[in-house]
Structures are given as C-alpha cells and as structure tokens.
C-alpha cells in the first residue's frame, strides 16, 4: 500500500521581516526535507526549537506555503509545482499548542464545527460529536462554555475536535507542552491509546525526547532545517548514526576518534573495539551511554578496559553517578546503586564492545548551539 504522507525536497525560505534583514544571507527554515509516513503510523518530528519541525508540519497543513518541493497526502498532491490545495480542502486535522479552542462557543459547538463545515446532516453531527466527546471523557461537559474548562480538558476538546472529522492525517503541534508535568504523562498515555484505537496516521511535533520515545512508531530527528536521522525509538537511542542524535536523545558522551580497521578505533584512552560503525568515512566520534560502562576492581585488565581514579560520586536513589578520570579525561559512569565507589578509589572502567559505537561527527559549531539545552551532556573534544 502507498504511504499516507510523502514529502519530497521540501524547502521553505526564511522570509525576512524587514529590508535590513533581507540583505543578510537567508537560511531556509526547511532545507530539502524528504519524509515518508506509512498508514497508521505515529510519526514524530523531534528537534530543538528553530529546527524546522513546526514549519514542516504547518506546510503539510497548508498554513505555510513552502518555497519548493512536493507534498502528497494519500497519493494526492496537495503542494507541488502547479498545485496548491488550500488548508480547508486537505484531508487533515490539527491540534495546536495553544489548543485554539474557540472561546465564544460551547464544548459541543467547538467539536461540531468541523462537521458543520463539511455540511453533514444534523443527526449525524450530533451522533458523531457525542461519540467524540465520549472518547475523551467529556460527555458531561458538552454544554459548558469552552473557556470554563481546565487546561487538560481544553486539550481533550481540541483532540475531540480534531478526530471528529475522521481525517486521513492527524497533525499535532506540541499539544502537551502547555500541561503540567503530571497531566502531561497522563495525557501522553491517553493520546497513544486513542491513536491506536482509531488507527489514524499521526504526525507529532515535539522538542521533548522522552515524549517522542514513549509515543512514536518512528522518529525523524531534525536540526537546522534538515532531517538528521529517521528510525524507531530503540534504534535511535541505542544505535544512533549521528552524534547529534546521540546527544539530543538521552545522555551521551562523545570523544573524537579515528577508525582503526573495521571493528576498532584509536581513542584518547587507547584502542577500543567497537560493536558497529556507520557507513561513510567519518569523521567519527566514539559514543557510549553512561549506564553502559562497567566498573571493575583495579587490576582487572583486558580489552576495552582502562584504569582511572574516581573524582566524584553522587547518589540519586536508583543510580549512582560516578565521575572517573581516565588518561586525564573525565567520563561519567551511571551504576545501579549499591556498588559504591568513593572519591580517590582506583577503578577499571570497561567500555563494553557491544555498546561502543562510532557515530558521524557533527561540526563542533553546530553542536555548541544545542549543548546548553540538554542536561547531563558532556562534550570532550
């Protein structure tokens, strides 16, 4: 079966706000993005703010007019060289970050609006609105003014209003980011259940990697208007191909290295055997997650093992974070609590071969942009 959404070579030039800015070289907001989303998929666009994910989503909705490229929804061209389908004629539904609930309407009127716009008979509208409200557990609130609802309830109204259309494609623009932490996790699970239940193809935009990992079938990691990497959550977390992905999703430690044959690399610590390397010539970084290091008593020598000195430990309940100096380089080990080490202890750190990966190195200038936003990230160059 053909994919539900195809985006080919999509470009959206940045539109300068004034003449003065127009003279500066303009950087495209979206720079040759190619994406394919299969039917029924929960597909996430993940990246830091300004990476072009929202612009891409809004281009699919028809709220932005791209500069060039092609967008097809269920095989029908909605944007291309000769054809621009206006938003209201695209088979989509969208939930906005601000929910965009119409304050002059009741809950029922909000949810019924898309069906009235489609000129459905009254009986069918009522039936489908009731069904949608039941689905989001708001049947008791149908006749309340929409503004009399809490944030989480408004979010549900927005969701009911989107699904009531039974559109082919559901677009979600950071719908959870205005909720408080507890509600966000609750809504996240509900959202996932509903999406599975309805089987609706969903494009989800977020900058929250945890949200992306827990919800998505597949994730496209974006940066500076480009797609860095597309994959299923486990793959992106455990086997990223790019240093940007490694750092943006979860915590990662990276060291610039040189490939040394197919299965090994020359690192600042010495020779490290690696599980796998991406295709290409590099340059490469060695990437290990802090929880994958193994600690051994001093003297337990072997391949991928290096001796060092514990400089600092901190205990956080489930885990202990242990900073170790190896060959003058500090690295962080996350170990299950209980196996205590103390500052000043000599230890051997093992880089388990199956968890050592070579990833394509991003230019350092590009990395510096995102480092402050990601907690626990350490970059050693």
């Amino acid at each position, binding site marked *: 079966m053909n994919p539900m959404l195809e985006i080919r070579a999509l470009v959206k030039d940045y539109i300068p706000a004034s003449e003065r800015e127009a003279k500066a070289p303009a950087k495209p907001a979206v720079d040759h993005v190619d994406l394919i989303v299969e039917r029924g998929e929960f597909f996430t666009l993940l990246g830091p703010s300004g990476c072009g994910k929202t612009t891409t989503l809004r281009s699919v909705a028809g709220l932005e007019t791209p500069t060039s490229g092609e967008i097809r929804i269920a095989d029908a061209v909605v944007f291309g060289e000769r054809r*621009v389908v206006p*938003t209201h004629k695209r088979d989509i539904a969208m939930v*906005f970050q601000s929910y*965009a609930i*119409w304050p002059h309407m009741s809950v029922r009127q909000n949810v019924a*609006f*898309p069906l009235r716009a489609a000129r459905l008979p009254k009986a069918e509208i009522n039936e489908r609105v009731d069904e949608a409200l039941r689905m989001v557990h708001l049947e008791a609130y149908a006749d309340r003014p929409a503004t009399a609802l809490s944030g989480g309830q408004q979010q549900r109204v927005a969701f009911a209003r989107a699904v009531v259309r039974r559109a082919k494609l559901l677009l979600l623009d950071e719908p959870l980011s205005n909720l408080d932490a507890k509600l966000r996790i609750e809504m996240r699970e509900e959202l996932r259940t509903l999406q599975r239940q309805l089987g609706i193809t969903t494009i989800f935009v977020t900058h929250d990697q945890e949200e992306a990992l827990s919800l998505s079938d597949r994730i496209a990691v974006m940066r500076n208007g480009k797609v860095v990497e597309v994959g299923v959550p486990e793959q992106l977390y455990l086997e990223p191909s790019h240093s940007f992905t490694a750092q943006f999703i979860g915590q990662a430690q990276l060291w610039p290295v040189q490939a040394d044959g197919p299965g090994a690399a020359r690192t600042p610590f010495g020779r490290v055997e690696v599980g796998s390397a991406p295709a290409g010539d590099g340059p490469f970084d060695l990437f290990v997650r802090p929880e994958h290091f193994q600690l051994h008593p001093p003297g337990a020598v072997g391949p991928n093992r290096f001796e060092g000195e514990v400089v600092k430990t901190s205990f956080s309940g489930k885990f202990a974070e242990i900073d170790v100096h190896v060959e003058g380089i500090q690295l962080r080990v996350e170990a299950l609590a209980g196996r205590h080490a103390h500052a000043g202890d000599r230890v051997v750190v093992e880089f388990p071969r199956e968890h050592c990966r070579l990833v394509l190195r991003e230019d350092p200038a590009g990395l510096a942009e995102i480092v402050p936003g990601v907690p626990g990230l350490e970059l050693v160059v």
Partner: protein
Amino acid sequence: MSILTAPRQQGSPPREFGSGRGANIFRRWLPTIILGVILGYLVVIPLALLVLGSFKPTGLLFDPGFTLRHYIELYGNPNTYVLLGTSAVFAFGSTLFALVLGAALAWLAERTDMPGRRPVRFLVILPMAMPPVLLAIGWGLLLSPRIGLINTALRDAFGIDQPLLNIYSMGGMIFVQAISMVPTAYLMLAPAFRNMDPALEEAALASGAKPFRVVTRVVLPLLWPSLLAAGAFILVVGFTVFDIPGILGMPVGIYVLSSEIYFQSSPPAGLPNYGGISALASVFLVILFALSWYYQRQTNRSQRYVTISGKASRARQFQLGAWKWVATGMVALYFIVGVFGPLIVLAWTSLLPYYAGFSTDMLSRLTLDNHVALASNPSVLGAAVNSIVVAVVAATVVTLLSAAISWVVVRSRARGRKVFDMLAFLPLAVPHTMIGLALIFVYLTFTAVPVYGTIWILVIAFVTCYISFGTRSTNSVLFQISGELEESAHTSGAGWMRTFREITLPLMRPALIAVWIWVAAHAMRELSAALMLQGRDNAVFPTLLWGYWDAGQATVAAAAGVWLIGALFVFVILTAVFGRKKKGDFR
C-alpha cells in the same frame, strides 16, 4: 491567561490569503485590489485633488494650466503667518492645559485616596456626550461680555462697567477646547498611571530617593511616552477642530486653520478662491501628517512600556491627607465647569421666550415654545431623520470596513498592507472642514456621481473622518486574538468565508459594537464636514443648530442642543454598558 490573548506562537507568522499560485494569483491580489480601490476613493483621491487644485489657476482640476501663483501669494501674504501663529497658539495652549488637567485627574483617580475616585472613573466619559459646538455655545451664554450670565452677575454684584471675562477671545477658545479634551487626555493617561509597576517607585524610595526625586526621575520618565502620545493626539485635534474656533473665534475675527477654510469657502459674494484655499490646506497637511506620524510612533512606544508590567499588583496609593477634600472639590468643579454649567445654561435658555440671565422674574415666563416650535417644524424632523440615517449608515460602513482593513493589515500577507494601514490612519490628521472641501473638489470634478448636496456625500465624508478611529480599534483587538483560532478553523475544513463569519467576526464583536456606537455618536454631532457640504436637502441636526445660532436665535439653538445632548447621552450610556467587560466574558 485566557485563550484569546494567548501570545502568537513563534511558528505562526501571518498567513497568506488563499494559498494560491499560478492560476490563483488573482485571488492573492484580490484583497489588495478591493481595499486599494476603497481607500483610494475615500482618502487618496480627495487629498490628491486638494493638493492638485492648489496648482491650478482656478483651483478646479479640469481647467487648463498650472501655476505656483497660489503658493507665491500665500507666502507673500503676512496674514498667512498670523494664521499659522494663531493656529499654533490655540493648538499648543489647549493641549498643554488639557494635558495638565487630564494628568491631574488621572493621578487623583488612579493613584490617590481621594474620596469619590470610583465615580470619577465612570463620570469622566460623560463630557463626551457634550458636543464641542454645544460646549462653546453654553460657554458663550455664560461668559459672553454683554449678555453672559456670569458676567452680568458679576457686574451686578460689584457694579463694574467693564465685562470681567470674555469667552470670545483666544484665552476663552483655549479654555473651552481644553475642557472638551480632558476626557480624552484622561482616557489616554489613566492606563499608564494604573499599570505603572509600583515596584519601580518602591525601589527608588528604598534607594533613599526623596519623593520629589522619585516623581522627576522615575514616574515622569515612565509616563513620558504616554504623555507624548496623548499630547501629539490632542495637538492634532487642536489643529483640526472647527466647532470651538467657529463659535467663539469667528465672530470676533480670530481665525485658525479650520475656520479660515470654512470662511473662505463661503465668501459673502462671488465664487470661493479654491486655489488659494487648497494651497493653504496643503501647507497644513504637511505639518499635520508629521504630527500624526509622530503620534503613531509614540503610541507604539508607550504600548511597549506599559506591557512591561502585566502583573496584577495594585499600584501604591498616595495618601492625600487633609488635601483629599480639596482634591474632590477641584474635581467636582471640573465636572460643573465641563458638563453641568453649560448643560444647565442651555436647558435654561431653551425655556426662555428671549435670552436673559437667571432671575426669579424669568421663572414665571418659562415656556416650552422653543421646543414646540422645533417639534412642529417639518425641516427639523427632516434634519433629525437625516442625522439618524447618516449616523447609522456611516457607523455600519466604518465598522465593517475597519474589520476588513484590519484583517488584511494584521493577518494577511497581502501586498501593500502597510500602505493600507497608513492610508486608513491619515484622515485623523485632516481637519474635517478640509475633508469637506476635498469632497467638494471631487464631486464638482466628477459630476457623474450625483451625490453633491445629498446626505450621501455626508456619509462618504464621515466614513473618511472616522475610519482612522475604527481601524485603530479593530487593529488592536485583532492583535489580541491568537491567529491559531482562525488557523484551527481552516484545519477543521472551514473555508475563508465561514471562518471570517463564524470565528473572526464573533470574536471581534465587543470591539465592533464599541466602534459602531462611537462612530454613530460622533456622526450625529459632527458639525464641520456637514457644514462644508451643506446643500439643499442634506441638513442634519448640528447644521440646523448652527443655523439658528448664526441667525441669533439663541433660545431655539439651545432647545435643539438639549435634544441633541439627550440623544447623545443615550449613546454614551450604551457605550458604557457595552464597552465594559462583562463577567465571564472571554476577553
């Protein structure tokens, strides 16, 4: 924060109208074309003809030849500089006076413990029901040197021959004009006083600054942008207003720009010197456009200032101590002087068989004759009907047009939207007598459109006069409505028309109602443009009133004035009811 005022998301720049390309290019240009034609018709053509006329020997556009004669004569004539000077003295004098009074009133009502400050906040809009022309007439009746009530009372009390106060003077004009602008000054300054973050003052006090220093170094600089914006606005009005200089200045030969234009357009004999008038008007247009440009820049700036503190902290209240009763007395005096004095004298005069002062003798002679005469005069009824028709049509057109212009300016990416915004703002700076004059040019030139001398030329004039107010209001409300509310209608499958009808318009409704009432009330009291365009069949209530006053029938004019004020009070109260935020309102 409510949904409506949610800030625009970083990812939602203005949307293109339609999403066309190629074949859709026409749709993309459609709003530009439609608004271009309307604003061109209402604003550009009249002003362009006015300016062009100043280069024509006869002042009429289709007559042959070009000349600079009118400008040479204008600059060579010392009276021109006298007129410039008089206009400036009147405008700056009344602005300064109105700002001082308005700021004092705003400070007392917003930042002190003055008794009665709450009713003041409501009462301050009442003077708006008092048209400037009636304020001037009322004060003429009170302070005319010969028959003024106060003057005769003073004369009797002190046995002085000379009149003590003469309202028919530059000082009198400045005084009445300032009184009429105080509510505007108050309304423009009160938010600045109200929203001023008290922490800024407290920080200065805590740093050891004396209260006087706090005022000069902290309070004034914070207020400065609002003061400049209000000052520039009141100054523009001072340069453009006709009613007060017309009533109080013209009879004694004191002319300012607007009354000079009126005077020259209706000379006692012969054809008006249209070329000379339009040369004069063009010179002033330059000054006024500069002023209004400055005003717009200042309002943008002052809005930036005010938004610094969106917190709900209550401003520090200044303890007036024993002075608080003095303050209440002063404020009460303002209301007596600004509203009740002229109102009472008008009501009194309207009941007299001939004009006379307050006395017990006259009580027995009070009569309703003037009112009966008015009510039984068919031309009065005609003028009243004309006034209502013109007000209703002009208000409706301004409201709808403002909504459409603002939508294109604020929301769309249509070409030329910034030009439209400017064009819609420009008429603010044009004296209404000048707009009237310009329309005379237009319809004497294009006689194919037979509106000259009908009420429809008044509708056109009033729409031009008030489109700047309308678009300023609708612009600001559209800025407050998040664009996502309309975008979500589009993603719900609603087309452009349905979205505008069912989402945009209902969300703008409170602002639209306020605009409608404001324009209708002002159109009902508008004298200057109506007077310029007066023809056989288009008398409205204010021109009728002016006619009675001009013909020396003060008592009948007063009776007509009482009726007009009655009608306007209804509107002002409606404004208060609809303009106030209702509980549970989504704004």
